[in-house]
């Protein structure tokens, strides 16, 4: 009987010839990532002292201060300092700060390789699945266990197969495909399971776009969201990886617990309305909803492809009066590339404020919180009540193009009318 990618990756990581969904395995962790907000400061620094105060393999640990950067308060600054000092004291050479959301940095700097097991103290760690890794989020205590032993226990998940055939029409992005998938499967429809994304629409997408899909697998409750490594993945990884990768593919006769088939050719821009990510509508059903803020950024929607395509839409136009148009490139590297290409200039001329690469806006820590009664459209991944500030604010999720169109219109709009 055939095996899925997840079954193969986890079997290899557990030192077994084969594994099947439902097996409980102790697996070797290839990369352990911590951020500032849920890293050493929560349980880990104190807890590790009882285990000799040393990590099992410093080169497999990556620490990225991204949530509280740049700090908006003395407390936030102290958390970043604590994280920086802790990394130095534990010989963690792979420490980064102020360069952008951890998942983007992990991918950009070659810390996510196909076929590897990647754990991180952030739920959107699943973005690594876009590169063919088994990547998933864990809590701080679980990370402490990994730092001590290099291992954790995982139940091999059943896999849901999601096939997108055809090709996305103009004005429709991977984010729309991602939201449609979540709307159909439901925000808990993949709980405890893995999701595998296949089909021509996926293989035609650039890696930047694939990441926006895998990033949001957890919004269906999934443990991991995986895509097979192909020529585009190899091109993205070229020169980044320190090791040879061990890419896995699913067998043709692999067993899936569920299958979904979608046609990308008929997809329209999708919007997730408050306060759940699966509360998804065709943009034509919600157009005209006034907004106060348009946010283009985050590990979901702030990559170079996103900024380019949004800049193309707003070029020579001006944001609506009275709204804030905030842009946060997903990394320092993306910032520099977008600047060189003139993309940031175009966005700024349209009235956008270019912010630091950070998690701060998406999760309401700094740089653009919402007050009661305010409404934001965001290219990020979560629209939970209170997430970006007041519990009486509303968050709508859309593609970078939908965010750009809304910034121009001052209300939710169909980006295809601006192309």
């Amino acid at each position, binding site marked *: 009987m055939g095996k899925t990618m997840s079954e193969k990756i986890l079997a290899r990581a557990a030192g077994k010839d084969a594994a099947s969904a439902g097996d409980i395995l102790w697996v070797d962790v290839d990369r352990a990532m911590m951020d500032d907000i849920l890293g050493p400061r929560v349980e880990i620094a104190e807890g590790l002292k*009882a285990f000799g105060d040393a990590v099992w393999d410093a080169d497999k640990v990556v620490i990225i201060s991204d949530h509280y950067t740049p700090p908006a308060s003395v407390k936030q600054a102290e958390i970043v300092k604590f994280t920086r000092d802790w990394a130095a004291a534990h010989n963690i050479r792979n420490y980064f700060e102020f360069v952008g959301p951890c998942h983007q940095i992990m991918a950009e700097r070659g810390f996510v390789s196909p076929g590897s097991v990647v754990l991180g103290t952030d739920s959107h760690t699943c973005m690594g699945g876009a590169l063919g890794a088994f990547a998933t989020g864990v809590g701080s205590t679980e990370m402490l266990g990994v730092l001590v032993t290099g291992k954790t226990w995982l139940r091999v998940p059943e896999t849901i197969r999601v096939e997108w055939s055809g090709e996305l029409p103009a004005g429709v992005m991977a984010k729309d495909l991602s939201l449609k998938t979540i709307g159909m499967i439901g925000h*808990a429809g993949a709980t405890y399971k893995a999701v595998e994304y296949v089909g021509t629409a996926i293989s035609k997408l650039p890696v930047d776009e694939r990441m926006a899909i895998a990033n949001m697998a957890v919004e269906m409750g999934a443990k991991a969201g995986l895509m097979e490594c192909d020529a585009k993945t190899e091109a993205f990884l070229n020169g980044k990886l320190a090791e040879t990768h061990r890419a896995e593919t699913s067998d043709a006769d692999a067993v899936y617990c569920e299958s979904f088939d979608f046609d990308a050719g008929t997809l329209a821009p999708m919007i997730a309305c408050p306060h759940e990510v699966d509360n998804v509508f065709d943009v034509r059903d919600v157009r005209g909803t006034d907004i106060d803020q348009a946010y283009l950024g985050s590990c979901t929607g702030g990559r170079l492809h996103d900024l380019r395509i949004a800049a193309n839409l707003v070029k020579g136009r001006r944001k609506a009066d009275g709204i804030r148009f905030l842009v946060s490139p997903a990394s320092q590297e993306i910032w520099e590339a977008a600047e060189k290409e003139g993309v940031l200039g175009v966005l700024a001329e349209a009235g956008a404020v270019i912010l630091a690469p950070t998690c701060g806006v998406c999760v309401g*820590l700094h740089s653009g919180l919402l007050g009661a009664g305010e409404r934001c459209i965001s290219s990020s991944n979560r629209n939970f009540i209170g997430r970006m500030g007041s519990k009486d604010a509303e968050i709508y999720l859309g593609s970078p193009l939908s965010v750009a169109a809304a910034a121009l219109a001052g209300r939710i709009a169909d980006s295809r009318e601006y192309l």
Partner: protein
Amino acid sequence: MERIIKGKALKYGDNINTDIISPPQYMELSIADAAVHAMRAVDPDFHVKAKDHSIFVAGANLGSGSSRETAPLTLKYLGTEVVIARFFARIFYRNCINLGIPAIECPEADKISEGDALVIDLELGAIENISKNECYRCGKIPAHIFELIEAGGLIGYLHNSVGGR
């Protein structure tokens, strides 16, 4: 870990996510200081009520969203001894277990109301609702997870298996 847990329930609905339990704006504070803001979007009095209601009951998909362990840490700080839901989001479930908080899946969780007196038998996988004179079957905690809970969480388990100092 006691295998029989008694207490009064607080009851919430579906999709109580980690942004609700542990609002991100207060995560820079200590657990003690952040605890007064726990659940504020749905129940601003939670931090007071939790003191004499040690059982946290919710509907479907409890703990969805972020991996933040500050969510179960806050519940534990406020006195929650056990969490019950129709089903859990996976990272929250693992975080509870790793902290030694039993997380029990109960298909009939919706029958429980705020203030109900419950007796939970972890080994049998049963909940007795004294207030309503009802009994609910719930998912038994798998053996490998029970081992973790018995050790008081992952750290206790690691002390036993790897040996801390």
